[in-house]
């Protein structure tokens, strides 16, 4: 037990910090939810990949550097503190990749991961359907057996990044007779250059197309794009969504960086003491989330399963993120509602973008209502 990082960890932090200082674009990239912004973010990911920093915790053979969980957390702290761009590769690197490591074949890993790390393939998730938001078991999209593979039919929606991504992954019903949670298969499929797939971007609050609908009408997918066994998709997806809720998606670095920006903003605007009180509280909550995450990382490294306790983190960080951005709005007044296109925009519109983005946190990856029920039933043991 120690307050300090190891010398190796400190060296890694110093290296990451130095590289980021040299390489982070001095001005924010255009939004990744526009065509040009998406390609600018892909170019940034390629630069990260060239420095072996796009997926630091992966084994070297796939483009990573075999960093420990703690080193990964350190990298994330430095990454966000440096004001580096949002990760357009996130769905692939942090959601699909852990699933591939756990359930994929060696061939799938060798084919898919290096291209993912290099940002040659950018992945979208395709979980939701119009009638199945948080209730994944209500999925209706189908995969029908075909020669050496499957044909996909159905309608996915709220697919983040799908407007411009290369690939997507999701669940499809392969056995219509099986009960809700059974008979689902985890499939990966191309979004471009194939027949039977149409992507329709969804315009959203604040502009841009962070989400898309995917219409599937017979898209052919060979067997080697099935992840795990057919019919086993539910179990595999649950493993992914639990990593989505858990450590991998929401490292503390992003919230620490926001909290630091918020404190600077409060100092700069000469905050009202009542607001300053809430700013200090938010800053400390980000700190608490960080400490908690380090403790969790340690337990994971020691072989423990985190399981449903990850839901506590999901609720905590997502509500903290909303709170911090709301505080920024209060500190900024009307200026805080100006977009990046406004001459007077605060911080290039980042506070507004972040506010709108933060509001999605309590919704996606299982709404916070669902998370609280999970905590009550599966952590505390209350009756269903």
């Amino acid at each position, binding site marked *: 037990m120690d307050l300090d990082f190891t010398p190796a960890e400190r060296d890694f932090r110093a290296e990451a910090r130095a590289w980021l200082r040299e390489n982070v674009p001095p001005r924010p990239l255009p939004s990744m939810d526009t065509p040009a912004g998406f390609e600018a973010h892909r170019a940034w990911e390629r630069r990260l990949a060239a420095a072996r920093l796009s997926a630091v915790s992966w084994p070297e053979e796939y483009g990573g550097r075999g960093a420990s969980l703690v080193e990964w957390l350190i990298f994330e702290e430095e990454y966000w503190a440096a004001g580096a761009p949002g990760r357009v590769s996130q769905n692939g690197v942090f959601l699909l990749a852990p699933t591939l490591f756990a359930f994929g074949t060696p061939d799938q890993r060798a084919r898919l991961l290096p291209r993912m790390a290099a940002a040659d393939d950018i992945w979208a998730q395709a979980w*939701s359907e119009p*009638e*199945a*938001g*948080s*209730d994944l078991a*209500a999925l209706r999209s189908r995969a029908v057996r075909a020669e050496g593979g499957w044909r996909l039919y159905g309608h996915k*929606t*709220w697919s983040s990044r799908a407007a411009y991504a290369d690939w997507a992954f999701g669940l499809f019903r392969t056995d219509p007779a099986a009960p809700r949670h059974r008979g689902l298969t985890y499939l990966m499929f191309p979004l471009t250059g194939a027949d039977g797939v149409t992507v329709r971007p*969804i*315009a*959203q*609050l*604040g502009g841009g197309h962070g*989400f898309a609908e995917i219409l599937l009408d017979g898209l052919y997918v060979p067997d080697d794009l099935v992840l795990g066994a057919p019919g086993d998709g539910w179990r595999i997806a649950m493993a992914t969504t639990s990593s989505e809720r858990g450590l991998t998606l929401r490292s503390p670095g992003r919230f620490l960086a926001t909290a630091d920006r918020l404190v600077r903003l409060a100092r700069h605007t000469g905050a*009202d003491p*009542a*607001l300053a009180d809430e700013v200090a509280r938010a800053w400390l909550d980000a700190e608490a989330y960080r400490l908690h995450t380090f403790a969790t990382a340690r337990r994971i490294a020691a072989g423990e399963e985190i399981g449903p306790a990850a839901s506590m983190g999901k609720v905590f960080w997502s509500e903290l993120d*909303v709170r911090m951005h709301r505080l920024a*709005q*209060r*500190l900024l*007044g*009307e*200026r*805080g*509602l*100006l*977009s990046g*296109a*406004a*001459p*007077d*925009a605060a911080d290039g519109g980042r506070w*507004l973008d972040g506010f*709108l983005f933060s*509001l*999605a946190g*309590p*919704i*996606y990856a299982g*709404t*916070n*209502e669902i998370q*609280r*029920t999970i905590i009550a039933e599966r952590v505390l043991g209350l009756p269903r």
Partner: protein
Amino acid sequence: MDFALTDDQLALAATVREVLRAHCPPEEVRHGRDRRPAWARLAGVGLFAALVPEEHGGLGLRLADTVPALEETGRAAMPGPVAETVAAAPALLAGEPDSLGGLASGKLPVSVRLGEQVYIPDADLAELLVVESGGRAYALPAGTGLTHQPGVDPVRRLFSLAPSALDAARPLPGGDPRLALRRVTVATAAQLVGAARHLLDTTVAYAGTRRQFGAPIGSFQAVKHRLADVAIAVEFAAPLVYRAALSVDAARPTADRDVSAAKAAAGEAAEQAARTALQVHGAIGYTDELDLRLWLARVWSLAAAYGGTAPHRARLRESILSDPGRWP
């Protein structure tokens, strides 16, 4: 003591609501071929004449009489400088008989920059701008020296004004910028209450039909209780808004405090309604598919207008802790 709405007040509100329902539906707010929908028709029912003195063609009503009608303009997310024209302009143009006539007829939409306000809302939809400087009111023709500052609300646009634009401004000797600011702040609070009511109604309707896990989501206790909390917040913000209007009308010593209370409470209730609406709708609430985002943006925009919650709360804190005199 009789703290309830009169039949006249309710009748004006009901008329405004009918007009807006027919002529300012969400599609109109959203696509806005006519960027000031329903404006002429509301002039026809006297909305813009309400605070104009009778001798200048107005109805000579008090601000309190218009609160329920202003709520309706918020409920409809009606575009244009409504609060400014209805509530602020008559006080600013009090010395300009011709302008008062234009106001009353609905032909003179006005926007304003008063007190510590930085941006002029809906300057693109106004014919006349009135700007406070050094405690006095000045008139400017619309269109000069304005820079659009795009933001979260695509309909209620904000503009900055070049300082040099004031060189061409005409003083308005009979104008009362302080009264105008009080009134427009209360009017904005009333619109926030209306917008919150719309968000609550819409979300209740959605929760009653959207199904997840085999049941309408509105049957889950977590959703029910959250919506009940919104209903409570709106229910107890509304009387503060009405009271502020009465205080401003009577120029009570507590008027500034009551205005701040109204704006802070209405802004918080509406923000709570917006947050809950988005959470209950889920991802679809974000998108162009629904009209919800128009109301979300309007709530954020109005909650920050004429002093956001933070400065009003700070004023309240000082006022109440130094002299918590009750009314009456």
